[in-house]
């Protein structure tokens, strides 16, 4: 499992792929489960709609978008509907591999399949690092977010700090951009966000850069992967992977990638997400 970037909202895409192409062609569409993959993708982001539609066409695997509000829900969906696909985070992928999830492809961000977890706070504060925020409110997106919670927990752990006890409140915001908003509004003193989400947020709200400042940049960590449920047929997986890997060469696909702020997809082995598994192991 790959842990996604700190500033990006958790997005899970679950592809449920029927066993046969014919059956899938003739049967109902499977779900592409998403949970905060891209900033502002609360269900009304056309680019994700277009992405899923393009992927279904390109792989000939019928898909429809299904948004969930947490990685827990995403995992539950893939369990209950194993023919689905999902755009998930590294930690859930690592933790849910036992359910038969298979890694399809990893996005390329800034030319790399990795991203960072950023520590942000409001400009002008005296704190210099996350640990300076003792007894303060720390915002995070999801309890299973790599960049939002696992990475800072691991970093602090290495400094001998138990994150759950060190801060007055770990503020669960649901999405990385909510964490940014929480810091902007003073709700939280500091937040750990996905780097990809952070960059996309600043593209949309440049004024936030005047108010916020990045204190720490932890990583790199494996980017948020696209995984397939246990019942997605292997040919379909291959077809889907192939489509993703060549997406940047497709006109429509390239356009969608530009809108997503990504460079393309690469194929990686499951071991690519070992760092996350190790962090989990360490903290366990």
């Amino acid at each position, binding site marked *: 499992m790959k842990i996604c970037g700190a500033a990006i909202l958790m997005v899970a895409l679950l592809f449920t792929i029927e066993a046969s192409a014919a059956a899938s062609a003739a049967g109902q569409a499977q779900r592409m489960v998403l949970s905060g993959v891209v900033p502002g993708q609360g269900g009304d982001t056309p680019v994700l709609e277009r992405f899923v539609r393009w992927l279904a066409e390109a792989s000939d695997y019928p898909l429809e978008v299904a948004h969930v509000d947490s990685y827990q829900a995403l995992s539950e969906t893939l369990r209950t509907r194993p023919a689905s696909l999902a755009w998930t985070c590294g930690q859930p992928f690592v933790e849910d591999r036992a359910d038969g999830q298979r890694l399809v492809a990893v996005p390329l961000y800034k030319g790399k399949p990795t991203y960072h977890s950023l520590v942000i706070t409001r400009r002008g504060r005296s704190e210099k690092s996350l640990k300076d925020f003792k007894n*303060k*409110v720390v915002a995070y997106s999801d309890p299973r977010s790599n960049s939002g919670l696992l990475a800072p927990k691991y970093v602090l752990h290495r400094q001998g700090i138990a994150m759950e006890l060190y801060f*007055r*409140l770990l*503020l*669960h*915001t649901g999405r990385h951009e909510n964490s940014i908003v929480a810091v902007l*509004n*003073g*709700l939280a003193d500091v937040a750990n966000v996905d780097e990809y989400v952070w960059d996309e947020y600043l593209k949309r709200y440049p004024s936030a850069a005047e108010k916020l400042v990045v204190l720490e940049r932890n990583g790199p960590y494996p980017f948020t992967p696209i995984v397939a449920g246990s019942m997605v047929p292997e040919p379909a997986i291959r077809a889907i992977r192939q489509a993703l890997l060549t997406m940047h060469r497709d006109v429509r696909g390239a356009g969608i990638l530009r809108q997503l702020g990504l460079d393309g997809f690469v194929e990686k082995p499951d071991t690519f997400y070992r760092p996350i598994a190790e962090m989990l192991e360490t903290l366990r």
Partner: protein
Amino acid sequence: MMRLWSRLSYQIGIIIFLGFLCIIGFIFLQSYSESRKLLPQDAERDARLEASLIAEAVANGVRYGLSYQIWEQMNAILQRDRASETVSIEAYAIVDNRGALLAHSDPERYSLMMPYPHGDPGVVWLDAARFEITQPVRHPVTRQVVGYAVLTCQVGELTERLEMIQQKMLLPLIVALLLAIALAIGASYRVSRPLRYLAALSKQVGSGTVDAGSFRDKPEEIRHLAYSIQWADERIVNRGREIEKLAMVVQQSEEIVIVTDENGVIRYVNPSFERITGYSSEEAIGKTPGMLVRSETYSADYYQHMWSILKSGRPWRDTFRNIRKNGEEFLVSQSISPIFDQNGQISAYAAVQRDITQMRQMEDKLLHMDRVESLGVLAGGIAHDFNNLLTAILGNASLALMHLEERSSAREHLEQIELASYSAADLCRQMLAYSGKGKFVVKTHDLSQLVRDMSKLVDVSVARNISMQYRLADTPPLIDADVAQIQQVVLNLLTNASEAIGEEGGTITLATGRARLSQVDLLECICDADREPGDYAYLEVSDTGCGMDEQTQKKIFDPFFTTKFTGRGLGMSAMLGIVNGHYGALRIISEKGKGTTIRVLFPEAVGARIEQKQESASPARRPSCAGTVLLVDDEEHLRHIASAMLNRLGFEEILMAEDGRQAIDIFRKRHGEIKLVLLDVTMPVMGGEACFAGLREIDATVPVLFSSGYNEQEAIGRVAARERSGFLQKPYTTEQLAEKIAEVMREVAA
């Protein structure tokens, strides 16, 4: 504004408008007050509802401590709507059941999970427009309290609410105000129009032309007012007439009317004041009467006493000697009365003065005339008695002379007795003249001619060193007069003038003429009070002599007053008697050292003709005196002497009676024998006049010769049917008796 408010119509309009405004305002305020009262309750109710909804909404978030979700939820709630129209959530705090803050509207100030104290569930008002509501957040299933929602609510501004109410009421308010204005204008017009008519009507008050008939169909109050104005007009006109009359009375009054203020300063004088005093109204007003007309007749104490009486509210009446503007004195009978105002305080004084100068002069004159009259009566009585005595003396003397021989030594004595008797008789005549009873034969004469006829007599009457001048009127000034008396007047005046000139010499001017005398002219004359204005003929004697002072002028007519050493003092008084006897008047203009002019005025005889003087062509023939004579006289010695004279004249039988009754008795018995009756006039029991009437009843042809110590006019002037009668003035001589008997006999024979 004051000008508007001064008009009743505007007042009524404004009052109605304000009244309406008050009602509207009251309704508005009631609504406002109700709203103000209900506003907090509504706000609380709305806030409670909102709080409960919020509590339900965030229950799960609180339950799981999802601060961000709560915050996001609250933001969404607060951005979506407000609690109600009147309430908005100003701030919120969501705490868990341990009191830790889960979310706050001001996260920068209130950090999450910090202890957040809150009150018990309910509502607490923070100020007039804000309250805090604490709402428990319950578990969705177990309904246990898992936290609290503390909402700070802002009640919409009262003014906003009022504005909202005002906006709601604006239209009805405008309509009501327009209605109020319309009502006010209508009422104002309704009031002002009849008032304008009434004002026009009232302007006619005092003209007597007010007619309220056109107000018959007007509202009752207006109608009554119009009729009241008409009634007032009538009353004012009537009063005006009365006042006009009174004003005319005061204006035209002969009496002086002065009105002063309470300090005695003149405020009004009538034209009589101006005429009598010579001061104009403008000169008098503003001054006190004392400054203008007061003489020094009365002392300061007098005026002090007068003012004390006046100020006590009583009137003051007295005679004052005042001074005209030209310095002349005049006498007034004055009545000064205080005028009281409605409060009984003296507000003015009114003085009514009557000019009694002329009246007082007249009174003085009458007093003098009365005195002269009294003396005249006395003198007349004395003269009458003297004449009777002189008749006896003169008769006896003449009889004695007849009996005496020519060479008798006693004859001279008897002749002296006769002369003395004539002198006495002359004196008696003057006394009778003074008494005005000496007028004997009244005939119409030309006064100028009468003077001309006296010229010789005049020349010898005045001294040689005096130059006589005549200015006799060509047009005959005719008078009815006794020539002898007029001659006596002329001679008297000439004598006095001559003596006034004295030895130094001078001029006497004798003039006649005609003059028309007015009442005023008569006042300047010395005469009886009953003289009438009219045409008079006058005789005027002026001399350049020593003149008379005022004192002398006042006394010259007093009997026995004289400035001459030898005078008896009866000349001027006798002259005055003659003038009065002729119904005339005298005027004296004299000044010490500047001569004297005395004008004697007689009423002009109108339509009379001058009787030609009868020439006595032949001497009186001795009548044939024989037969019986009835002699009637109350004086025995006169009967005796007259009897002797009659015998001497030839009458054989003299029947004598002491009074008229006795005479009638005798005459009734023997009237056939009686040839003549010699009848005294003044007798006891029955006088000559009544006796004459009785005799005439018995025999209307018997000759009667009256005899009296008074003159003919006085004695028998009133006797009617005096034919075949004559008059013999006592005293008389035998010759005079014979002449009179002859005259009567001639008349009987004729």
